């Protein structure tokens, strides 16, 4: 029988290390899955955000077949079965680092230059659905409010558990002012239904579903990233498509 040389033993140890290290990392990742912004996986997410910002092309897309009305799932985080109730005297506020803060009624919004886009929805869960969205570009609202050159835009909602300030999501500026990012008040040629975010919701081609905030209350131009409802619970902050 051949004797195992020191060199072979070192090789074997090195080989075992190669196989074991990723498994160890995965095991730690599983343990840390409820706090994914931390540790190695958190660092990788931050690195991935840079890659995603680099890859972001501002591509504009269009699609053919509409999803039949009954086929569109709709989610809310507010307690109870149905969508949240619109608060009386609702207005959409545009604020943060802007020269002219705005407070708009639905009629004022609908009087602005409208755009209709047929876009595909990509839910983080894996499903897709197509609809026509009618609304005003976030870029147009940014112009009207005199938004300064901040890197982030935060969208807030009246959907959400009562102990929090509602559902929200913060976006990178480029995706928010993309030509296919709307504050939408119409879906498939009809006024937006409460299930899909009435009176107005955010809808853009370039983000996953959890970043498309429904029941908008505020749009804030900010110089810092302010996370989001699902983002703070573990989904990626960038969530780009």
């Amino acid at each position: 029988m051949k004797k195992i040389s020191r060199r072979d033993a070192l090789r074997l140890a090195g080989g075992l290390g190669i196989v074991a290290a990723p498994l160890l990392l995965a095991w730690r990742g599983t343990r840390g899955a409820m706090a994914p912004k931390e540790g190695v996986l958190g660092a990788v997410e931050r690195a991935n955000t840079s890659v995603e910002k680099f890859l972001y092309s501002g591509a504009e897309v269009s699609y053919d077949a509409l999803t039949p009305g009954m086929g569109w799932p709709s989610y809310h985080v507010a307690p109870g079965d149905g969508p949240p109730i619109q608060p009386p005297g609702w207005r959409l506020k545009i604020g943060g680092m802007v020269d002219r803060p705005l407070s708009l009624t639905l009629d004022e919004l609908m009087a602005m230059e409208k755009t209709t886009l047929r876009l595909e929805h990509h839910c983080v869960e894996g499903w897709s659905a197509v609809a026509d969205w009618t609304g005003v570009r976030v870029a147009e609202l940014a112009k009207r409010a005199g938004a300064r050159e901040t890197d982030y835009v935060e969208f807030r909602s009246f959907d959400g558990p009562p102990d929090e300030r509602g559902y929200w999501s913060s976006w990178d500026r480029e995706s928010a002012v993309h030509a296919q990012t709307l504050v939408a008040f119409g879906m498939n040629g009809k006024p937006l239904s409460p299930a899909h975010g009435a009176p107005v919701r955010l809808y853009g081609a370039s983000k996953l579903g959890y970043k498309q905030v429904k029941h908008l209350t505020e749009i804030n131009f900010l110089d810092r990233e302010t996370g989001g409802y699902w983002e703070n619970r573990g989904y990626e902050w960038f969530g780009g498509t």
Partner: protein
Amino acid sequence: MGKTRRPQPFVIRLTHWINVPTLAVMAMSGLQILRAYPYFGPQGAMYGGVIGPFQGIDFPDEVRLGGWLGGARHLHFAFAWILIINALVYLGYTFASGEFRRRYFWPPRDAKPALVQQIFYVKAFAWRVKRLVSKDPGPAPVQAPHDLYNGLQRAAYSGAVTLGALEVLSGIAIWKPVTFHRLAWVFGGYDGARFVHFLVLILIGLFLVGHLAMVAIHYKQLPEMVTGGELPKAEVKS
């Protein structure tokens, strides 16, 4: 190609063994991601036909990793880097070193030997059955001579590399279906790419079943994938 190279050079062995845990984590976190929506096709137009049986597919807890959708996505997008860098090192090495000549399937050279090898397997199997029932089964069939790999092995390994490439490309398409909408279009759109991503995982799994079966049969060759194997005789210094 250098005559002094071992059958399994260092870079080949390194990338092969890095692939083992990486593929396991990618597949297991992928199945956890699939669990959030285990259906294929767009909302309101789910795929039917031969894809029908896959709808609502459920995998047990033991083969999933990440705990929940968010955790699994972080694992998947982290280990994807290891997988892709490892694959690029492997591909770069095989082409730079000339290893691709003795590893990849080249139809004009390998198509016939692959068929001959296939026939040999059938004959060898028939001979073993004959040996069980008859006292004089005749001479055992002899395998055609070949160098490092026979044609069928080259077809199988090149097939696995192709499946890997398809898995990465369909994965990129469902990761960024808007940025890479042309790539997604090649796969039939976002939902097409998502199904391809799953189907190719199944095919990689089937390759692994075959691969492990061959390793079990030819177990004496397994250490070669660790040590690299013997240097060609003529070049060994006396």
